[in-house]
């Protein structure tokens, strides 16, 4: 082992000298690795950024919240199967609330999309309108910036009050406070009692949580008709570890409530944030892997370049190998020497590649919430070293196997 470290110093010095002695060749060879590393790291950064963006867009669902509804979010197969299921009703919600224990908060919700909100001659289309109860504040991640959330009395009485998102505030109330002002939804006046904190746009700007309106369930039915089966029961479990237990409890209770005979499948679904993640990883994840593989091809081409130049180097330095062997270099010393040289070339390429891809990741950052993560940078360096060792192996092996007599005779 002592010998190894003593020789390693020599090996590193030789490699640096050899690379410096052939500057142009080293630069050109390394270029292949540089391009490969830039492609792979930029691609990885984009993929990680895409996932981050997606996760943050579904984070409002809450990782410890279960959503009981008629159909699953990620339906596979026959849609009509779910459509023909009986609706989840308010009575079922009330029964469920009394039957289960593992929860922090429970709220029924109905939603509708694309309602127009009017105030003082101005109008704006809301992204989503929720009819729910005061408990919704606890099952969701919603926070209020001004005013208050609806209370039990508002809900019981079905008062025509609402909480509005920032986008709606910006459109309808550019110069005044919306609190206690009346907006009109389908011609029915609603008093604004709270403003929700800005959440930012959803996945790739697709869906804005800031266009949301929340109101008491009963008030909702007056503008959007009765609860036509879109009732979802949000159950905040409060502890991610208890999620599975809670799920089983709800499942059992719902089967009793909806009188599902033993042996029959559930006629409802219990959804959670996790399902979105899984769907994402199954679809976008596969595309991402394909992207990495394709960009990795450029790294592969770079590796071939390294291998090629290492073969040339070994041939050129046959005499040197002969001298070293005559003087007592063992097979592994020579092998190590050329492996280190190849690895060093690649790691240098990797470092230059990172220097290029870091500013590129700042450009990616304009679209996705990420810059070059240090894990990707560390991986890139490791991959470069591995590429060097792998592509340098055959030439180094050839060098180490040279017969000293023949190598010394080589001119």
């Amino acid at each position, binding site marked *: 082992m002592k010998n190894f470290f003593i*020789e390693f110093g020599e090996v590193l010095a030789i490699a640096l000298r050899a690379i410096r002695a052939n500057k142009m060749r080293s630069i050109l060879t390394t270029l292949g690795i540089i391009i490969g590393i830039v492609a792979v790291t930029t691609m990885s950064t984009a993929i990680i950024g895409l996932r981050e963006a997606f996760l943050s867009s579904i984070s409002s669902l809450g990782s410890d919240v279960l959503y009981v509804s008629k159909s699953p979010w990620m339906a596979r197969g026959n849609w009509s199967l779910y459509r023909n299921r009986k609706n989840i009703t308010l009575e079922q919600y009330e029964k469920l609330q009394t039957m289960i224990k593992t929860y922090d908060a429970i709220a029924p919700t109905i939603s509708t999309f694309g309602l127009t909100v009017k105030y003082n001659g101005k109008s704006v289309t809301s992204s989503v309108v929720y009819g729910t109860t005061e408990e919704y504040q606890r099952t969701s991640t919603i926070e209020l910036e001004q005013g208050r959330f609806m209370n039990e009395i508002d809900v019981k009485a079905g008062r025509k009050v609402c909480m509005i998102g920032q986008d709606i505030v910006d459109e309808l109330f550019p110069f005044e406070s919306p609190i206690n002002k009346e907006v009109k939804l389908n011609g029915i006046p609603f008093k604004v009692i709270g403003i929700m904190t800005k959440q930012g746009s959803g996945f790739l700007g697709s869906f804005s949580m800031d266009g949301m309106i929340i109101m008491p369930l009963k008030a909702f039915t007056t503008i959007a008709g009765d609860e036509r089966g879109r009732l979802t029961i949000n159950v905040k479990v409060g502890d991610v570890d208890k999620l599975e237990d809670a799920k089983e409890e709800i499942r059992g209770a719902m089967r009793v409530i909806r009188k599902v005979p033993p042996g029959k499948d559930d006629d409802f679904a219990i959804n959670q944030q996790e399902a979105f993640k899984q769907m994402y990883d199954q679809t976008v994840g596969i595309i991402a892997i394909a992207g990495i593989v394709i960009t990795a091809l450029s790294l592969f081409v770079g590796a071939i370049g390294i291998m090629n130049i290492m073969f040339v180097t070994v041939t050129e330095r046959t005499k040197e190998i002969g001298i070293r062997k005559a003087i007592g270099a063992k097979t592994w010393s020579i092998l190590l020497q050329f492996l280190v040289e190849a690895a060093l070339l690649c790691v240098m390429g990797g470092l230059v590649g990172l220097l290029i891809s870091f500013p590129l990741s700042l450009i990616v950052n304009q679209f996705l919430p990420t810059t070059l993560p240090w894990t990707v940078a560390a991986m890139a360096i490791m991959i470069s070293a591995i590429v060097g060792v792998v592509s340098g192996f055959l030439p180094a092996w050839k060098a180490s196997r040279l017969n000293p007599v023949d190598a010394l005779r080589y001119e």
Partner: protein
Amino acid sequence: MNIITIEHIAKIYQVGTEEVHALADVSLKIDKGEYVAIMGPSGSGKSTLMNILGCLDTPTKGIYNFNDVNVSQMNDNELAKIRNREIGFVFQTFNLLARSDALHNVELPLIYAGVPSADRKERAKEALAHVGLADRMHHRPNELSGGQRQRVAIARALVTRPSIILADEPTGNLDTKTGEDIMALFNEIYEQGNTIILVTHEEYIAEHAERILRIRDGLIEKDEHVKDRYIPKKNGESKI
């Protein structure tokens, strides 16, 4: 005490379908402190013999004992170790590393022997001083004259304090006067008690040794003692 004992070694190369007997049947003994010249025309097998003596190659048949260790069946790495510790090579074309300075060239065998840096540098400097190149340590081979290059090579051969110095036509690429200097250096090394094996095809050079082995057609034709060996005079470049 015999450093080298060779018994009936042969080296056979397969060239196409034909077998070439580079060495047919050679037996010899070399004692510690001897100065032996191996002579022979090209194709005589002297290079093959030198390669085997230098543990660069192994014989096809026969036994080669080096310091009472049988090296004829050793693998590449074991031979490398013997070369590193026991043999100092001096070549006709010097065979120095072009990109390294004199000091580093001399350090090289010590690197492969696993000697730590500080110790290594000290010993290499000592060896260079020994051959009279204390002031040329940081010169690269292309900044040195032929004679100086060969001195660096000799310093490299001496630095591990090997059992034998194996010199293959050490004056072949040098002019007569420089050759004389190098031979004077070998003489000094010999007089200090080192064992030297000199491979040459020049009678005049061979006569510096105390014993001449004449090789022809893969056999030792003659093993003679030099009665009146030529002792070169020092030209003053080296300092002992």
